[in-house]
């Protein structure tokens, strides 16, 4: 049980989610994204749609709808995470608020959601899933994507040369 945690409420696929404010470095618009073709790496990589160059660092941009296996919606905002080279494409930002407590995900939920969420928060009469920021990009996915981007960069260099 955590007390008084600041969270950012965001929407994706028509659902409101919360993410720890401490996990987010910046909220920005969707300009400056470079398409990333990672589908050939396997179906798990289809959610990585773009890269973002920011302060000399490459961020892998995750489509939140695909991450949550939801139908597509229009994204207008990007949540750039603090602890990993990950940015999340979302429909929009609702507001920042504080959650009094984090409830464990009921045990009946037995699928991927056990990794997607840290738990559930109750805001007034609504139940809001609190996302696990580390679940958007695993270490293994990060390693594979970095290698793929380097390879693509090298190939571009050969063509340009």
């Amino acid at each position, binding site marked *: 049980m955590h007390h008084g945690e600041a969270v950012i409420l965001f929407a994706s696929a028509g659902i409101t989610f919360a993410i720890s404010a401490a996990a987010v470095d910046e909220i920005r618009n969707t300009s400056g994204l470079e398409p990333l073709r990672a589908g050939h790496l396997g179906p798990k990589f289809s959610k990585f749609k773009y890269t973002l160059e920011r302060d000399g660092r490459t961020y892998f941009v995750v489509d939140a709808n695909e991450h949550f296996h*939801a139908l597509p919606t229009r994204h207008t905002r990007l949540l750039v995470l603090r602890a990993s080279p990950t940015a999340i494409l979302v429909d929009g930002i609702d507001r920042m608020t504080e959650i009094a407590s984090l409830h464990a995900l009921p045990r009946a939920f037995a699928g991927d959601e056990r990794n997607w969420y840290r738990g559930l928060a109750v805001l007034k009469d609504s*139940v809001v*899933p609190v996302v696990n920021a580390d679940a958007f990009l695993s270490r293994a996915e990060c390693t594979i994507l970095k290698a793929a981007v380097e390879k693509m960069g090298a190939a571009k260099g050969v063509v340009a040369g």
Partner: protein
Amino acid sequence: MTRKIEGGQSFVLFPLGKKRFALPANVVTELARPDRLQPFPHTTRMLAGVLLRRGRIVPVCDVAPVLVGAAAPPRKFFLIANRTFGSSREWTAIPVTGECELATAELLPVTGKLPRYVTGLLSLKQEIVEVLDLELLSGAEAEA
């Protein structure tokens, strides 16, 4: 309404469309009025979302598609049952299509070929009711 048959066990009978099923009464907590179902993404079969009930977050397990098919009529109430996960128990809301009934009857062994989650049969006045094991029912669907 309560039916009584000498020497029997208690069951809660619940309707799903034209058919009724039963759960042992000791796993049923209450029958709840319609409440706001709150869905969010997940990959667990049969789960439809959660309810907020008396400050508790209750997962909603819609068993109708498995038991009576996709054409099940709209569910009007929630039967709150206890599910066991290892040493802990957790409420689960099961959407049902009408009022429930408490019945006391002899649990008869399963005859014929029925799914594993049917643990017995109740022979009532004009119907045979299948008694379900929620854990096996969830497992059966997960294996499907």
